[in-house]
């Protein structure tokens, strides 16, 4: 019973989503609202702002560097969380090394 209920709800969601695709801006057009002056600024000024060819590298490390700082923190949290769950982590092995 529960499965069929979920199936119906999800089918309704899919129908709504697919129905609304026609009202969304098309795929791949240059006149999409998302291709406004922001990406144009990145593409034109990337060279004289950051002097790098790879615009994506200049975005993640210069224009929006704070995201990448958040990114490294996500990596650090995943390590701390896994160590706190699996428990082995630093203490066990480093003691062995420090002994001999």
């Amino acid at each position, binding site marked *: 019973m529960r499965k069929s209920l979920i199936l119906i709800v999800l089918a309704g969601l899919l129908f709504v989503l697919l129905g609304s695709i026609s009202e969304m801006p098309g795929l791949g057009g240059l006149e999409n609202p998302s291709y406004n002056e922001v990406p144009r600024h990145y593409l034109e000024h990337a060279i004289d702002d950051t*002097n790098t*060819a790879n615009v994506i590298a200049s975005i993640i490390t210069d224009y929006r560097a704070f995201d990448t700082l958040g990114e490294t923190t996500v990596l650090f949290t995943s390590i701390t969380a896994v160590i706190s769950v699996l428990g082995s982590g630093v203490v066990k092995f*480093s003691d062995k090394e420090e002994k001999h």
Partner: protein
Amino acid sequence: MDDLIVKTITRIVVPFIQLYGLFIILHGHISPGGGFAGGAIIGASLILYTLAFGLEAGHKAAPHGITSKIETGGILWFVFLGLIGILAGGSFLGNQTAGFPMGTFGNILSGGLIPLATLGIGFKVASTMITLFHNTIEEDPID
């Protein structure tokens, strides 16, 4: 898990994979790729080494003491780069405005903050992957 073919092949291949990963990190801002991709490649080479030579050898290659220092070092390095932006009068994580040397277009040391940050990210991703792998493996060591 200790058959000869795998070990010899790994011993030959691993340095080249790591060299390629380092190339991807260093050329992150000129050609496609970057910190994340290069770090993943180096992490994968370390995982291959641990798989082939067993957990003990794996721990010698990437001992926990050093990997946790790389983890901490990666973030502190990034924060330090950001604070230079403040010291130079701009705001956090400023690059050209913070007076980083921009270098000539196209070679490795161009783009001020970008190669330094990409290097930090690359090693951080590599050490995170290998530590995750070692932690999940530690439950039942394969040797």
